């Protein structure tokens, strides 16, 4: 059984000028210990998806429908109290901006300890001792001193390490990382990604990594799901997706990113552009959401939304024109 099974997730927001369909019927699953990446551009619904999993969407104006089954339990049916027991304990989250997600007036140790006291019933001393261990685990030098410091005394990379320490404090089964390295410099990003992978292996948690950076996806993910305009357009094992993307949007995205080393392998070619821009989510989109920007689009695409189909083994795409591969060994 999968660790997490999401079915037909719909997260809509009521706004003054109509309903915004931020996530519009998305289904996926995460297996134990697996790393699933969700990629897409701004406004594709990837962050709203992750917030919905944690039930962090304010209702109203938001509304979550569908089902989110975590180890068989539907999270959407739990009471607030039951949900609180799961957050930070079984499922935890790392956000993009470590400065705004840490409390500026509490020491780092208190913030790590809070989770432990709440979920594991440790007393204050035990929680602090454990906090020092966790800081050591995430590679912060002089943990016994740092544990008494405030977030503003730490660099961006160290703050993100603290966030990781908090999220791993209770050995969660699922870790949701929403653009965890986007605000960091590349050399620090490399440190943090390595740390996350390392700890994930040690703790045995599954990870949902939300990012717009295809480079990061290629480095850390096992399976990838591509979102566009609130819908899932493609899903595949990582090597498969990069080798033979099926959906025209995925193909466009991959063509639009320059690869490091491009100047060494012959003349730098022109970057592929995806013409136009993402459609507004305020109107209901009939047909394929990508039809307006797709070179292959026909009347069929504009009228009938393509369903997600398995095009080759474990490789799903929602496109009328993506060819199905004969089942080969």
């Amino acid at each position, binding site marked *: 059984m999968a660790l997490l099974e999401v079915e037909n997730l719909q997260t809509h927001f009521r706004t003054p000028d109509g309903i915004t369909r931020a996530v519009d019927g998305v289904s996926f699953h995460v297996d134990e210990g697996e790393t699933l990446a969700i990629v897409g*551009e701004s406004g594709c619904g990837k962050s709203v998806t992750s917030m919905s999993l944690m039930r962090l969407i304010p209702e109203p104006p938001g509304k979550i429908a569908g089902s989110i089954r975590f180890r068989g339990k539907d999270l959407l049916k739990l009471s607030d109290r039951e949900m609180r027991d799961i957050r930070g304990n079984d499922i935890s989250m790392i956000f993009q901006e470590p400065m705004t997600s840490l409390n500026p007036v509490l020491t780092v140790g208190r913030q790590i300890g809070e989770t432990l006291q709440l979920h594991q019933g440790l007393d204050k001393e035990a929680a602090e001792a454990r906090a020092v261990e966790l800081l050591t685990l995430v590679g912060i030098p002089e943990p016994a001193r740092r544990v008494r410091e405030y977030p503003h005394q730490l660099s961006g990379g160290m703050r993100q390490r603290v966030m990781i320490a908090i999220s791993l404090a209770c050995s969660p089964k699922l870790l949701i990382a929403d653009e965890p390295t986007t605000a960091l410099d590349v050399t620090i990003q490399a440190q943090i990604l390595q740390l996350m992978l390392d700890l994930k292996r040690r703790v045995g948690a599954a990870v949902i990594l939300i990012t717009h950076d295809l*480079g990061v996806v290629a480095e850390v993910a096992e399976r990838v799901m591509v979102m566009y305009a609130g819908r899932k357009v493609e899903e595949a094992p990582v090597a498969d997706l990069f080798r033979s993307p099926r959906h025209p949007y995925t193909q466009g995205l991959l063509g639009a990113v320059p690869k*490091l080393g491009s100047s060494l392998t012959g003349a730098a070619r022109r970057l592929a552009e995806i013409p136009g821009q993402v459609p507004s989510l305020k109107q209901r989109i009939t047909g394929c959401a990508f039809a307006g920007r797709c070179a292959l689009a026909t009347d069929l695409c504009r009228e009938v939304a393509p369903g997600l189909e398995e095009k080759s083994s474990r490789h799903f795409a929602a496109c009328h024109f993506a060819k199905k591969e004969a089942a080969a060994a």
Partner: protein
Amino acid sequence: MNAPLLQVNDLKKHFPVKGSILRRNASRVYAVDGVSFEIARGETLSLVGESGCGKSTVGRAILRLFDITAGQVVLDGQRIDDLSPDRLRRIRRRVQVVFQDPFSSLNPRLSVRDILAEPIRNFDLAKSSAELESKVASLMDTVRLPRDALDRRPHEFSGGQRQRICIARALAAEPDLIVCDEAVSALDVSVKAQIVNLLQDLQREFGLALLFISHDLAIVEHMTHRVAVMYLGKIVEMAPRNQIFAAPKHPYTKALLSAVPVPDPAARRNPMILKGDVPSPINPPMGCRFHTRCPFVFDRCRSEEPELRQREEGQWAACHLETLPETPALAT
């Protein structure tokens, strides 16, 4: 050979740090601390480095958005860092800028027409209102925006379109050099590609020189002629594109390149991961500024600052090591 379009000689910019009442002007931030380079006509030079390395400060100093602490900025043989405000105004036409955030760099109360007409009027580039109008319209064609969008205001456009407006505004002054300060960093992947392609087309069309300030090495490699890598206010390596990406001579360049995630799962490699954080520019390390994070550090690095020396034709690096060891002592 022609003189370079822009020459920057030993540029320094230090910012005072406000001290307390007891310790006035306690210290200074050495944001840029002795940087020299040239840009030829029609050339793209990229300044790369991590946050706080001083790359944006260099761009702003060239635009003279503040006065510099020491050094010279020479445009076409004329020093521009010490010009009077009146004479500077005329020079300003020749060096324009595109900033990172197209949301905050356009006046929300002006229509696109007014935004584009302003520099043309300001620098007397149109003789009649008919000429002004036709120039504004053709700028829209140049940046591939529809002419009928001229009466709209910035909030009606998407991020990519706004960045096109910023580029059109820079072009309106008919400049020789455009400073692009993280001009594509805030954009989504597919839109980024559109703007990068546009900048390359415009450079070819108008023979523009670009100072491209960016932290995105893959984009830099895609569009630049030469690269200068900055670390803590200094250039540590400068070279033509092919040389620097094929064979970096400075350990920092090497680490930067190896830290960039490659969008190809087949190419998973062992990156050279640097230890620790960038030190504070208020109190930069003695000797080589990179020595606190360098995997190849030895005694000399801690006491003696390496000079920027030419290693190969056009490739300069500031490192005591002639050749970098193959396998660095990997840090975890």
